[in-house]
């Protein structure tokens, strides 16, 4: 909020300005205008010369501790004044004396004063030897305190109410770092300083405990606190680690960097590195705290083979032999196309690459798909059709440079929390933000415009926006002229639509839509972000195309602060598709039916490959039910719980002759397997993940795979070799080398050169990477305008008569998808079950009270779920999560899919409700 620059931004801006001089201990140095004395001194004389307490790398300067004071004089050895260096800009030609005798005495005296209200029990304190106060006290040389014992706050009580966050306010030194972290980094405003002067004390919420407060357990405050006043149950900041390993979070497509502390091979805690480009010192509770699943007692620790309906422990060789002979048998009897594999966007690029290589080159089929199918396949397709490249055009850091954001079908504060926090900060600064969502999400509450659509009407609302932009002459004519094709036809199509009709369809006031459209169009730079609320619809691909159209019509492509930016759900959705885990495209997105590319793949792999498109996930299920598809290999996916229409999925899997599942836990899907292979988690393996902004980042094994398990990559390699291939053992460096030869945009990717912050593809052969796509031209040459007309989902046209409510699905911050991992961590103590959001009026009509069990029934089945009455949903709309197998929400969802990408329509499901009699509880 202040104009004082942090070193990085100051340096970024410094190139054009002429150099200016100031003196440190009478030696001249050039400073960067706007730079603070602290960064100036540290840059030139090292980090440790000037101690600080209230300053923190990711927070605005605050100036409250005054430990950082230095002497500043206008002439050499002149009359000096003490100034707080952390927030005072360097004055030209000033003389700075960072360690004058007077200053040293001042620092010592301040620390002495602070210590008069601090327990002197360092030896038993959690952060002993790891405490900033202790360090500074030693540095300034405080040995004893001259003050008599007086009134103090050392008897304050600890707060141990929360599964993760802890506090012991007797250790508080009132530096405000926690308050600022909660405000400036997370934007949650949980912490504040109450009382005045000596009575100042940190409170949570309205003087509540951590557990009762609105805290979202991001841990920013604990990481920021210089003492043990706020910490966490893992004692993350003070743990004396034998090793610290940098790796990447696996819980969403943001791709936060984590620093994991281990003590003798056991993971103890996770912190967020400040130099991480993606998350600069921040994470959400999943990244920081939800790691205890990794050595949970329920981890699968040996292969299991099902015999007579019972799982029997087996050795790896027994399991491999069993699978290999079964696969060979099925291939011989029914052909290779009776076999297929589903890869996982949770796994590394290298593992995904191997998985498709296994299915294509060893089995000999294109029946390879991944869970990207059920989330962002329409994004890839829609963006390929309009731009040529199915990936985010820009980066999250562009939030710093943009003037307006449009968030459509995404709930970033729950689903992509670190990016969500940045967006919230953006909106809270009063900048233009447009949210299109059926629910009043947290972002919607902060947004300038919330277009609260009826589920399933994205195409209609986007057409309305396009209409008003055209009607009001707000297009970017030169961009359209120079960079795109197909506009005339597109324009005519849009203008032919009836706004009153679309207003009725979407349920959103057309005047509001007009204002939002013009706000987006008139912003100098506007970014759009979208999530599964766009893709998981029967018209998902069309919606993505319209989002791309909106960007093109307003010229918001190809520079900083603009673009179309899908918020990728899983940590490596981008990578799974890049690596070729799709039935129609191999590694690097080459069409398998194109003769030239087919030949290229055949010569690269040295085997014959099929030249026709394989089965997508929903087609695999249908083929299995039809008896044409016999064997399925699942790498790390719980399809039964997470794919829609559970009963349909179960029926398909039951019809298989062989179901192989690589898993960490006995999931709902694993229970149906013929063979379960115990895999290692992301904490136990190396490789790369590609985040939502195309950033290929290094995942480094923190610990060895827990006993009895293997990395997914090694498992695939083992079975490939068992079936005749000759792959070396799993090694990401070697695999990346292979990938770089076949995937053009990985051309310059080398394991050793990825560094801590990775590289954004395309990475050219010389190793340089790409922050912004389509700066000069599109992959397709010109951008293609694509039109789309709204159509009601068949789920509603078929069922709405009997099932009048629309159920949509969402995510909660605490849990990740099927929850196999997060339910086995402290997160489960924060969010205990799935709930059904229902509007107060509907609740009243059906006599449902908060917390009552509600029976929800669709054309597929019924479930019981707990009611949460809220006006976040409109009347007639319900919303729920599917994190808990006990609730089994996907019993209800339909098999309707996106017409083009076959992504399931999780977001629209016709249901009816009544107060539960408790009969349909799933056991």
């Amino acid at each position, binding site marked *: 909020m202040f104009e004082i620059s942090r070193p990085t931004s100051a340096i970024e801006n410094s190139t054009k300005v002429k150099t200016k001089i100031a003196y440190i201990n009478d030696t001249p140095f050039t400073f960067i205008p706007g730079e603070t004395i602290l960064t100036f001194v540290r840059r030139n004389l090292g980090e440790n010369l000037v101690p600080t307490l209230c300053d923190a790398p990711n927070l605005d300067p605050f100036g*409250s501790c005054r430990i950082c*004071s230095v002497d500043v004089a206008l002439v050499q050895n002149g009359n000096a004044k*003490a100034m*707080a260096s952390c927030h005072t800009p360097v004055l030209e030609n000033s003389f700075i004396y960072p360690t004058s005798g007077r200053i040293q005495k001042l620092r010592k*005296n301040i620390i002495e*004063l602070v210590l008069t209200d601090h327990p002197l029990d360092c030896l038993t304190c959690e952060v002993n030897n790891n405490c900033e106060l202790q360090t500074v006290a030693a540095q300034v040389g405080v040995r004893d305190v001259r003050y008599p014992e*007086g009134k103090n706050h050392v008897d304050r009580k600890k707060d141990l109410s929360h599964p993760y966050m802890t506090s012991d306010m007797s250790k508080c030194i009132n530096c405000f770092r926690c308050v600022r972290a909660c405000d400036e980094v997370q934007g949650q405003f949980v912490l504040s300083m109450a009382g005045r*002067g000596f009575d*100042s004390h940190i409170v949570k919420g309205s003087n509540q405990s951590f557990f009762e407060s609105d805290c979202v357990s991001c841990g920013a405050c604990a990481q920021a606190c210089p003492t043990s006043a706020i910490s966490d149950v893992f004692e993350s900041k003070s743990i004396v680690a034998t090793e610290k390993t940098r790796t990447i979070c696996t819980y969403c497509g943001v791709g936060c960097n984590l620093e994991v502390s281990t003590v003798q091979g056991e993971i103890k805690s996770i912190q967020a590195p400040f130099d991480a480009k993606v998350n600069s010192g921040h994470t959400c509770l999943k990244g920081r705290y939800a790691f205890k699943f990794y050595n949970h007692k329920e981890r699968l620790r040996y292969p299991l083979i099902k015999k007579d309906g019972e799982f029997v422990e087996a050795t790896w060789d027994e399991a491999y032999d069993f699978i290999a002979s079964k696969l060979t048998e099925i291939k011989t009897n029914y052909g290779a196309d009776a076999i297929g594999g589903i890869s996982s966007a949770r796994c590394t690029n290298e593992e995904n690459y191997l998985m498709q290589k296994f299915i294509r080159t060893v089995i000999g089929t294109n029946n390879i798909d991944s869970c990207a199918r059920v989330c962002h396949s329409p994004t890839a397709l829609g963006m390929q059709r309009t731009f040529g490249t199915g990936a985010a055009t820009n980066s999250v850091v562009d939030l710093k440079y943009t003037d307006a954001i449009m968030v459509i079908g995404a709930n970033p504060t729950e689903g992509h929390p670190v990016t969500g926090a940045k967006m919230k900060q953006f909106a809270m600064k009063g900048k233009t933000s447009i949210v299109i969502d059926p629910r009043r999400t947290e972002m919607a509450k902060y947004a300038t415009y919330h277009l609260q659509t009826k589920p399933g009407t994205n195409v209609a609302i986007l057409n309305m926006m396009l209409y008003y932009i055209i009607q009001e002459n707000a297009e970017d004519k030169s961009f359209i002229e120079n960079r795109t094709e197909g506009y005339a036809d597109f324009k005519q199509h849009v203008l032919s639509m009836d706004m009153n009709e679309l207003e009725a369809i979407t349920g959103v006031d057309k005047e509001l839509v007009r204002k939002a459209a013009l706000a987006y169009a008139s912003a100098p730079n506007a970014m759009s972000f979208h999530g599964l609320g766009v893709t998981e619809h029967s018209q998902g691909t069309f919606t993505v195309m319209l989002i791309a159209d909106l960007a093109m019509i307003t010229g918001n492509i190809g520079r900083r602060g603009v673009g179309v930016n899908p918020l990728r759900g899983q940590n490596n959705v981008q990578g799974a598709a890049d690596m070729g885990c799709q039935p129609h495209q191999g590694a690097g997105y080459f069409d398998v039916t194109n003769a030239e590319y087919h030949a290229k793949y055949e010569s690269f792999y040295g085997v014959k490959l099929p030249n026709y498109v394989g089965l997508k996930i929903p087609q695999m299920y249908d083929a299995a039910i039809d008896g044409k598809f016999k064997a399925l290999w699942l790498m790390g996916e719980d399809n039964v719980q997470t794919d829609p229409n559970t009963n349909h999925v179960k029926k398909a899997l039951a019809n298989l002759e062989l179901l192989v599942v690589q898993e960490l836990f006995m999931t709902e899907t694993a229970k149906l397997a013929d063979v379960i292979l115990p895999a290692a988690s992301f904490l136990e393996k190396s490789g790369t993940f590609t985040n939502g902004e195309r950033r290929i980042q290094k995942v480094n094994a923190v610990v060895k795979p827990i006993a009895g398990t293997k990395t997914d990559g090694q498992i695939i390699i083992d079975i490939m070799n068992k079936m005749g291939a000759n792959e070396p053992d799993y090694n990401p460096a070697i695999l990346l080398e292979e990938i770089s030869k076949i995937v053009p945009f990985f051309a310059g990717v080398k394991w050793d050169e990825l560094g801590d912050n990775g590289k954004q593809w395309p990475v050219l052969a010389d190793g340089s990477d790409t922050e912004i796509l389509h700066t000069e031209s599109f992959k397709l040459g010109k951008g293609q305008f694509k039109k789309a007309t709204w159509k009601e989902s068949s789920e509603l046209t078929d069922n709405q008569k009997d099932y009048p409510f629309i159920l949509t699905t969402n995510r909660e911050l605490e849990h990740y998808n099927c929850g196999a991992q997060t339910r086995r961590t402290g997160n489960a103590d924060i969010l205990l079950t799935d709930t059904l959001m229902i509007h107060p009026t509907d609740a009243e009509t059906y006599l449902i009270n908060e917390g009552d069990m509600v029976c929800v029934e669709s054309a597929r089945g019924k479930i019981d779920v707990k009611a949460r009455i809220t006006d976040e949903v409109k009347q007639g709309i319900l919303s729920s999560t599917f994190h808990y197998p006990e609730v089994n929400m996907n019993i209800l969802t339909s098999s309707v899919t996106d017409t083009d990408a076959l992504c399931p329509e999780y977001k629209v499901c016709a249901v009816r409700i009544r107060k539960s009699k408790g009969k349909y509880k799933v056991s």
Partner: protein
Amino acid sequence: MSSIQLLLANDKKPGIKNYTAYRANGGYQSVEKALGNMSPDEVTEDVKKSGLRGRGGAGFPTGMKWSFLAKPEGVPRYLVVNADESEPGTFKDRYLMEFIPHLLIEGMVVASYALGANVSYIYIRGEYAWIVDILEQAIVEAKQNGFLGKNILGKGYDLEIYVQRGAGAYICGEETALLESLEGRRGNPRIKPPFPAVKGLWGCPTVVNNVETIAAVVPIINMTGDEYAKIGVGRSTGTKLISACGNINKPGVYEIDMTCSVEEFIFSEEYCGGIPNGKRLKACIPGGSSVPILPANLLLKTAKGETRYMNYESLSDGGFETGSMMGSGGFIVLDEDQCVVRHTMTLARFYHHESCGQCSPCREGTGWMHKILKSIENGTGKMSDIELLWDIQRKIEGNTICPLGDAAAWPVAAAIRHFRDEFEWHVTHPAEAMAGNYPF
């Protein structure tokens, strides 16, 4: 009464609180003049020429402050009047607002016009609740008569004035804490830069001025800045309100033209009327509780032996060694019966209570000064405590975010500097100190 009364000329006139009487006595002419014949910059220029210095305590030249206001395109600007007046011994703004509310409103219209502000605020001390009604009544009347609201006097200039009550914190008189509080947040002072002139209220350029400062704009515009500058002496131009209290016969608010001597101010019938019961003058805090206390000899005459006058330059003659400050004009007189240690302890308690608690030196230091003074007062102090006290105040002064730290340090420093013998006596005579049997 001094011949020159610019602010309090009409304060005793019947009905002056109301618009009709105020207008009949020449009220709102400065608005007519400024909006009628002067550009905003000309108004600022006139205020510069007047030599008016801020009456809130620091004495910063007002015209200069106004000309520093940033004026970026399309960003609103604000005038905020500081009516928090919580400094012990200071009650001049209360008098102005309670008895001549229209003077403040009139000054605000002219000042806001000069600054290009269309919304202005009065941030008023929470305990002045009844004055809020008076000011709001004046605002309504000014609006009804076309001096406020849309299109003032048909000149196309709009202004709204809002009154906001504080909640009882002295720190909210510090201009940046005031802005935080006005924005609805905890009243913690902000670090500077940026200064309010660049980023003030809601992040927009803002001028914060004292009530009396803004009121003085009215006579300045009416009589011209040049004429105003002829009143007073040196850089102490115009008239100044002094709120006098303590051991004097006639406590109250007086308007002086800054040419009168301190002695005249204390002893003349026109002003304080001398010390009750013929007691001796012991000491005085001439500018509100934050400024250094002066013993009688240094109060009436400077160290150089010259007569001390009631103006900025003269009161600060000798610096902190032998002088004091004009401050906020709260004039507190102590007679021979008063104990300086006790008095200093009372002030230290006040600052300890009022520190916002952000800066470690101020939060902890004010607490320790209070504790140590209390212990000396109670006869449980040690000689080394006096040194410790000195040491603490030295570590606070100049080492904090806002000047409250200084304000807490100066009284202690001055008391030790000028009355060290009393502190030592307390240490050496614990029993008598406890009983309050002072030999001095």
